[in-house]
């Protein structure tokens, strides 16, 4: 080919609200990458698009449903999980995916997150973890590393972060995996796997937030953070046999491994409302 050609449509344009593109996420932000993986997984899921529903709370990642050409619900901050539970239990044939961020799911939404995992409700969670509250300009979040700078921790974050895979494993999720935004094939695979795995599944994706977390913590831009991912990611197959759960904690400012992979894949009875066998 002499040069690149200009195209009218992207192969996945039918699954996104193309009349709303380009989207609002900053250059170098990883959310769009994961949204594309989600769209691709839907395409390959074999489930009619009409039965896919996506729910989010508030935050940068929570704008994903607005761009997905699906039945989409952009609910209130911290509440996508119960909203999704209502949808799923009322209409079980729906494939309900909660697509939201670290703050929305694990801080304000934390209570709902752990209880839904405990109950093992059949909803799929995609959690983009960019280590801060991006939408509001880069405040400290539940996964912000100890000592990291944000607009509300100008002297360094005085708090320990959540280790989300560990939290979800403890709470009862039947499938927990974590990738970085660079692991685009694995993300799509695990979302697809989640669609086929009954119960509460949780896929965490570490994604660059160049403006909110990168800049105050000396990560130049999105590509730089993706290079960090490439350099430091280590695949783990069995936790805690190979690696203690604590090792899964992430601090992008330190030159230490970022453990990725499928950490939990087990069977637990899926939540079913009580039905009397008449």
């Amino acid at each position: 080919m002499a040069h690149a050609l200009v195209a009218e449509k992207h192969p996945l344009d039918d699954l996104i609200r193309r009349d709303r593109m380009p989207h609002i996420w900053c250059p170098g932000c990883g959310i769009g990458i994961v949204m594309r993986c989600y769209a691709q997984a839907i395409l390959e899921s074999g489930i009619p698009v009409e039965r896919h529903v996506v729910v989010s709370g508030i935050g940068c990642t929570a704008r994903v449903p607005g761009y997905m050409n699906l039945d989409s619900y952009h609910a209130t901050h911290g509440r996508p999980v119960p909203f999704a539970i209502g949808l799923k239990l009322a209409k079980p044939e729906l494939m309900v995916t909660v697509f939201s961020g670290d703050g929305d799911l694990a801080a304000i939404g934390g209570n709902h997150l752990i209880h839904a995992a405990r109950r093992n409700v059949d909803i799929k969670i995609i959690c983009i973890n960019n280590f801060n509250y991006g939408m509001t300009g880069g405040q400290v979040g539940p996964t912000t590393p100890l000592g990291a700078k944000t607009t509300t921790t100008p002297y360094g974050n005085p708090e320990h972060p959540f280790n989300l895979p560990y939290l979800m494993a403890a709470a009862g999720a039947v499938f927990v995996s974590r990738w970085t935004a660079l692991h685009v094939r694995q993300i799509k695979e695990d979302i697809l796997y989640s669609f086929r795995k009954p119960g509460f599944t949780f896929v965490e994706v570490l994604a660059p937030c160049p403006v909110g977390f990168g800049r105050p913590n000396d990560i130049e831009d999105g590509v730089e953070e993706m290079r960090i991912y490439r350099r430091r990611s280590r695949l783990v197959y069995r936790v805690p046999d190979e690696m203690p759960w604590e090792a899964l904690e992430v601090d992008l400012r330190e030159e230490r491994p970022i453990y990725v992979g499928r950490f939990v894949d087990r069977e637990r009875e899926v939540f079913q409302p009580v039905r009397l066998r008449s």
Partner: protein
Amino acid sequence: MKGRGVLTGVHFMHGDHACAEGAIAAGCRFFAGYPITPSTEIAERIAQRFPEVGGVFIQMEDEIASIVAVIGASAAGVRAMTATSGPGFSLMMESVGLAVMMEIPCVIVDVQRGSPSTGLPTLPGQGDVMQARWGSHGDYEIAAYAPWSPQEMFDLTILAFNVADRFRIPVMVMADEVVGHMVERVVIPPEDQIPRWERKRPRYPAGNGFKPFLVEDEDLVPPIVHAGEGYRVHFTGLTHDERGYPDMSAEAHHRLVTRLVEKVRRNASQMIRYDTYALDDAKIAVISYGCTARSARRAVADARRMGIPAGLLRLISLWPFPVDVVRELARQVDVFIVAEMNLGQMICEVERHVCQPVKGVFHAGGAMIPPDPILQAIREVAFHGTRVGGGKASAG
């Protein structure tokens, strides 16, 4: 045993249970709740009965999760309800706004107890009535009904679902501990006599160009589309345009919020409910609601026996407030008395519309206001024969 949805017949039924049976009779098949005195018996009854009628009951981790799950279920097309009391009601306020903004119908039962705060968990109060109207943030309108008996716990829950579905709004049933915990005669009609107002559905099939929030009817209610019907609609709490897409312009906001408010005001006549007793030739009008209205009715009857021209206007719909009947009454009567189990809430709404001083009979809660203080107030205004003084004398 596949239970019957509608337990046609005459019952001697607990108020909370009657509320649950009303929901079932109305076709409610999703309930998410959280235990809280004095409404827990509603959830208990639902938990018992739903498996018989194919309903989905789930006890959530808190009241926020409960109301949000209810909105989610309703978005999937199922009639859904939660029940709580003051503290849980407060936790649900943000979600009331979400239901308003997404125009997703739902029913919230508030069995009020002594408030504020933990207050009197096992005793009555009516201190949440303004919160029902203004509890969430911003401009919006809802409907709220105040039952004064187990029979009305049944009837008004059905009405609440009908109004919610017909106008796509959250509707509240503002009961209180007395009405919720008393046991009384409840007549449940045959199934075909249970009124059912359906949700307005789209006239066009799914396809491009369909605008889910475009209003084409006078009633300002857009047809509702549910999850899984292929319309691929976006519902958001953000201000949105007719396609449901976020729109941050002031014009879009004013247009949308005005419509959401007008939608209730323009159709208020279909939502408003009230009852009168000995009001036709009354010169003193007592206004009351819920359990307090039972005492007010007795006080009015006693006053009549003393030859005092008193009458009772019982508010069944607190919101929308029955403005016309109150304004009309203002031309007929010399003085209004408002009896309510709080320190003066609905009285503000009455005063706003009658533009004359109103005498209050208040009690902060914990016990029903007996007939006597209301009768005393009636006699005071009757014998003085003069306009009531400026302030609200409390005879509580």
